[in-house]
């Protein structure tokens, strides 16, 4: 078992455990923390795959901004442990099987078609930030600008939503 594989399995376990605990935890804060763990683990995986910039962004934006926002809102609303209501019979009985089915389908599809994938590039072959930025500002410049617009709209929306009408 080579070092990268070892690291992969460590991080993967971490991620899966985090996801599971996200589900099992009863308090939103704990769920949020679990999710952060998942994200950090994923960032590690990205590094392992050589996508260093994405890894950094993952931590900065997801870990540092989005999840902080979540935690912040949880604290703001002073959310307490979720009550285990079961009003939705459908979800109660059909939820697990369907989720398993979905996962199974995806996994099956991957397992079937993984043969078709080309041999992965040697781990640690970094995609330099330069390359990404070149792509962003040349080939993907329109989507890029659109995202900026999207963010603007989102900001306005958030303001409109959050302000108390006086």
């Amino acid at each position, binding site marked *: 078992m080579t070092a990268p594989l070892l690291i992969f399995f460590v991080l993967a376990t971490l*991620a899966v455990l985090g996801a599971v605990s996200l589900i099992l935890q009863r308090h939103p804060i704990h769920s949020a923390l679990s999710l952060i763990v998942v994200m950090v683990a994923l960032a590690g*995986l990205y590094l392992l795959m050589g996508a260093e910039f994405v890894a950094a962004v993952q931590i900065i934006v997801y870990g540092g*901004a989005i999840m902080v926002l979540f935690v912040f809102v949880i604290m703001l609303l002073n959310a307490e442990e979720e009550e285990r209501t079961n009003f939705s019979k459908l*979800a109660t009985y059909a939820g697990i099987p369907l989720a398993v089915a979905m996962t199974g389908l995806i996994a099956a599809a991957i*397992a079937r078609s993984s043969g078709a994938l080309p041999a992965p590039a040697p781990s640690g072959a970094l995609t330099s930030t330069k390359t990404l930025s070149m792509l*962003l500002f040349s080939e993907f410049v329109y989507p890029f600008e659109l995202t900026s617009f999207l963010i603007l709209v989102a900001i306005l929306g958030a303001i409109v939503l959050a302000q108390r009408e006086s």
Partner: protein
Amino acid sequence: MVPTSHYLLLSAILFGLGIVGFVFKRNIITLFMSIELMLNAVNLAFVAFSQSLGKPYGEVFVLFVIVVAAAEAAVGLGIIILTARNRRSLNVERVDLLKL
């Protein structure tokens, strides 16, 4: 050397867990987090593909996904705050009037 299918399977598992979370959690915020989890799973798949294909496009897409997720979080949390204010509850099962 980690084969790409490992990453893909991992992302599938995470995605499935996200689904489970979305179906089984009652707290709106946690639901939201489950969605983020699914997004992350997809990101992982993207990066894995882009690595195995040796092309950076996947990573670009991940960047876009992250941006969208950020916007979504901003608006979504705003909505959640509003709902919590009006309904005095974060439990989605108590918020089933489809109107305020």
